[in-house]
């Protein structure tokens, strides 16, 4: 029983990260209908920014609340800028071109970032993994029995942040002018432009927001799994994308639910079956979900009007 509870906690913790990264995927997909393959790599860059700030702060400052906030802030702003640049120079010129071309530039950006960061030419970090500083000093938040089940403070913090962000995003998308503009652009950006919506600005802002989210997710990820390296974005990005699709890509709560579900499914496969089939089951789960609900759990397939 206790290990069931522990698996549940692990699954939620892993799912939280998937969910956070998936949120960024979903937002960008929402407005651009683009699978932003570079999203995971933007996340990676964010963690390295956070890492650099933490190094600058030194041991005594990085674990304070202000230190942690500064790390988050710098990483998020840095990634927002990076996201802006990527959108401006790699995606915007291709907006009215076939969607696949933007996908290819996304892949190009992804390669450039991940392999570029593997170079050991300063200031690039090189291929070796780095230990991410403990900017949240790990403390047991809840201990059951003789350490049979442990919940850590950072797990609680991550989950709260993920849910908080989801609610904020949901509010942003459905309650604000910006959100309305976003939805309009998502529906049809040409018509939106005719209605006086500054489409370029909305897309750029969405992109920056998504990238900042990725950076935040990246830092939380680094806090959870303590090591960062240039290829980390590839793997997490792929899983997060799967999570976003399970939830129904383009759908904010769907991304969170998809992320948590994927985390839990993976966790319980490992816990009660064989860990070697984990990835197969993750993708199998995805396929089954799509076969039952072709638009993902929360998405709806818009029937084509004939």
């Amino acid at each position, binding site marked *: 029983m206790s290990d069931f509870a522990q698996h549940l906690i692990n699954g939620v913790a892993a799912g939280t990260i998937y969910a956070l990264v998936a949120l960024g995927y979903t937002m960008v*997909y929402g407005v651009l209908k683009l*699978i932003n*393959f570079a999203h995971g790599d933007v996340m990676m860059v964010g963690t390295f920014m956070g890492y650099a700030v933490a190094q600058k702060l030194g041991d005594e400052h990085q674990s304070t609340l202000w230190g942690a906030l500064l790390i988050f802030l710098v990483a998020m702003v840095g990634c927002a800028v990076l996201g802006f640049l990527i959108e401006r120079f*790699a995606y915007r*010129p*291709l907006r*009215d*071109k*076939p*969607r*696949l*071309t*933007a*996908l*290819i*530039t996304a*892949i*190009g*950006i*992804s*390669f*450039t*970032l991940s*392999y*570029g960061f*593997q*170079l*050991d*030419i300063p200031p690039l970090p090189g291929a070796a993994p780095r230990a991410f500083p403990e900017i949240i000093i790990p403390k047991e938040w809840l201990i059951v029995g003789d350490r049979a089940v442990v919940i850590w403070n950072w797990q609680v913090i991550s989950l709260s942040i993920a849910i908080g962000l989801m609610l904020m995003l949901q509010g942003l998308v459905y309650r604000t002018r910006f959100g309305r503009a976003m939805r309009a652009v998502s529906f049809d950006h040409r018509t939106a432009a005719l209605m006086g919506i500054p489409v370029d600005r909305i897309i750029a802002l969405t992109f920056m927001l998504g990238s900042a989210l990725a950076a935040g997710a990246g830092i939380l990820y680094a806090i959870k799994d303590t090591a960062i390296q240039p290829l980390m974005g*590839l793997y997490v990005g*792929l899983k997060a*994308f*799967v999570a976003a*699709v399970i939830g129904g*890509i383009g759908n904010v709560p769907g991304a969170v639910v998809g992320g948590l579900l994927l985390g839990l499914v993976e966790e319980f496969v490992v816990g009660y079956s064989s860990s*070697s*089939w984990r*990835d*197969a089951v993750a*993708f*199998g789960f*995805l*396929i089954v979900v*799509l*076969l039952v609900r*072709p*638009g*993902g759990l929360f998405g709806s*397939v818009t029937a*084509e009007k*004939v």
Partner: protein
Amino acid sequence: MPAWLRGLVPVLIAIAVLAVLQLVLGEFPFFVYLASIVGVNVILAVSLNIVNGMTGQFSIGHAGFMAVGAYTAGKLSLLLKDVAIAGLPTMVSDQVQFVGTLLAGGVAAALCGFIVGLPSLRLRGDYLAIVTLGFGEIIRVIVQNLDMFGRALGLSGIPQTSSFFAVWFCVFLVVLVARRIVGSTHGRSLWAIREDEVAAEAMGVNTTGYKVRAFVISSFFAGVAGGLFAHFVPIINPGSFTFVKSIEVVVMVVLGGLGSTTGAIVAAIFLTLLPEALRTLFLQLGGLGAGASLAQKVDQIRMPVYGMLLVILMLVRPQGLFGTREVWDVLPRWWPGARKGIT
């Protein structure tokens, strides 16, 4: 020329030309290796183009089909390694077995293509894409878990029976098939599906059937490519068939121009040789300056440079090198100009 011969003439010409090339090139093993890897990528790109370019379905799991073919053919070859067909010289017997394993690999992959093609009846666009991707990953995990496929180490010691001739004859076949499909009712039906599925269906095109068949043909050739690959590397392991490989093939197709067979060929050749060309370039640069040590450092830079080049190429030519045209379509007779994306 009698009509019945018209279909066979290109095959005869190709056999003759390739046989001569084979004799000449035997002296340059590195060139042959490079040509083989280029050939495999051309087969992958041209076959994927049948699904992604012509039919407008978006598959990014081609490496999975390639893996199925590679493992099937590789495993069969290993099993048959010490067996020779009675009454034939060893060389001939080896080649017969090689062709047999290639076919088996292709058929196994085609079977998988059929299975993956089925969900395409229900799914569209990005959703189909992720399912094909998932399929590729599942294949990899299965291989990693099975002892008979050598798990992480993969299969090794596969006889190196592949040759320049074998690879490029398969290239020729896949191109021939792609071209002849385009020029037939079937090709037009595939284009129609890409353009408008509902209308195609209303005009009597069995869209589901065609989509599945496109998948089957495409994955058959991916399997053959995998089989060839297994016979000249000659090590295969799961690391060679990750989704990054699938992506590379998609990049070739898009770069060449969706739907353009010759575009896919040129893009595949270009993208395969690019890293090697960069290597040569950097070696030359290194030779000028700080000696070979710079070249060593610089070999690492190839991958990021490759990524940058992708971005730049797409920005310069978003419709791909040839759009949907073929090289010889000087006049914009068939679908030139910008395309609408996948839907």
